[in-house]
């Protein structure tokens, strides 16, 4: 895949039909979100739980903009795409290293669309009795929501298009794009008619 030089956000990589959100816009919004989160958790020690792998790029930039003490951990859930047997069920493939009972937890996602993954993780974490549990996502594709997810901190609402970049992938590719791009329907086999 031919990559544009970082910083040259006007060049479109292969397979990207449109740059939806530029790197500059992302950085600006993350700075704002950092202030919002710092203000919300000023009186406690929040634990930011990133959902791998989509959160990686977003979370690493986000935490640098939160100017209060915080802790970080990560969780990973098996994707539906990885299901081999008809009766397979979601499970945690990388659990937290931290006990969250009584903690103020902020779940950090790269994108929330159907809400299935976030919903599953929230149910799981809620059962561990945190003091508070909220959700922060860079992208919110609300139009596709099946499971209702209360989002406390939101970067951008996005339309019903397949977006990649800034940690978000298509078959593990495109995570390293510095912006959010719309992937070609042809690549993902979609017929929009």
């Amino acid at each position: 895949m031919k990559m544009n030089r970082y910083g040259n956000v006007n060049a479109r990589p292969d397979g990207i039909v449109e740059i939806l959100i530029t790197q500059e816009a992302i950085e600006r919004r993350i700075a704002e979100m950092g202030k919002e989160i710092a203000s919300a958790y000023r009186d406690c020690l929040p634990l930011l739980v990133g959902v791998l792998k989509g959160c990686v790029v977003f979370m690493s930039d986000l935490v640098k903009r939160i100017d209060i003490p915080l802790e970080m951990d990560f969780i990973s859930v098996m994707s539906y795409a990885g299901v081999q047997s008809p009766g397979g069920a979601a499970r945690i493939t990388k659990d937290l290293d931290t006990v969250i009972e009584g903690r103020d937890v902020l779940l950090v996602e790269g994108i929330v669309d159907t809400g299935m993954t976030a919903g599953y993780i929230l149910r799981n974490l809620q059962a561990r009795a945190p003091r508070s549990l909220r959700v922060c996502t860079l992208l919110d594709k609300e139009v596709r929501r099946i499971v209702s997810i209360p989002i406390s901190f939101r970067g951008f609402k996005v339309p019903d298009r397949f977006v990649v970049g800034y940690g978000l992938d298509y078959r593990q590719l495109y995570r390293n794009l510095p912006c959010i791009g719309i992937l070609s329907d042809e690549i993902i086999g979609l017929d929009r008619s």
Partner: protein
Amino acid sequence: MAVVTITSQPGCPGIELAARLAGRIGFSLVDKTTFAQLSGEIDLDEARLRKVDEAILKGDLHIDPETEACVRLLQDLIAQLAEERDLVIIDRSAQGLFRNRPGTLHVRLVAPRKFRVRQVRTREGLSGREAGRLVGALEKEHARYLRFLYRLNPADPDLYDLTLRMDRLSIDQALTLMATAVDGMDLLQVPRDRIVKDLLPQVPEKRDTGRFANTAETEFARFLRFYRIPFEYESRTFNLETDANGRIVEAFTPDFYLPEQDLYIELTTMKQSLVTRKNRKVRKLRRLYPEVNIRIFYQRDFHNLMAKYGLLGSPEKSHPGFGRDEEVKSKRK
């Protein structure tokens, strides 16, 4: 609003008469070409349509659910067209679909076999024997189709309002008789909904526990189970309309109910531009039951969902729920 069905014995000029009648009275013609177009719009390609016809013509009344779904869907499409415009329909067992309906005229074109064989022989450039065989094969084909869909015999005179002998009438004379019948029966005065109401069964058939109507529903159920989202399948039927006697004349049963989200989900395999009837029912449901949350998952939505998990676009991960080579839902709601 009216529907004219023309059932033509092989060798009679049914196709020409249907086209000329449609033109003369300003109706839309539904013929083989129309079917091909409709099939394409619902992702039924020619190969699948041929498979559908072959299965029926083999005389096997127990065809697989997928093929049956295609057949039913085509009938459903004709019914939808009838909701929108006046039609002249040639063959395709339309006399079965619209039998005994107000606002319809059912015409049968007949002639002695000798006459018809002669016509086919001239038209197709065949020998007498070949033409005879072709006429016989086509007769069996038409009979099987009607028997499969509606358990009817095409030779039953009660299916027709007008039977015309094409060895004794010219095409122009037959045309005049049909047009006169359309006018004389005041077909155009019949309100559209009297013709199409209840055209297809409104109440879904009961299914065995755990069985879904098609692979798309099966896959969606699997998807919900994967994320441990509790759901109910076809758990509630919403009455949309009752008659003066309290009998249900229209109802709708969404596919899935997610109790934790208090959300109904209806999957549809048809292209978004063709779900007029389903959209109408959902709009009606929302109007009558404003407290009910319901969402339609169109073909495109389901594809988006599968694309998210990389389950489109490669042979090893292609999903069989929707699309050109995929099972078509025929559920009647």
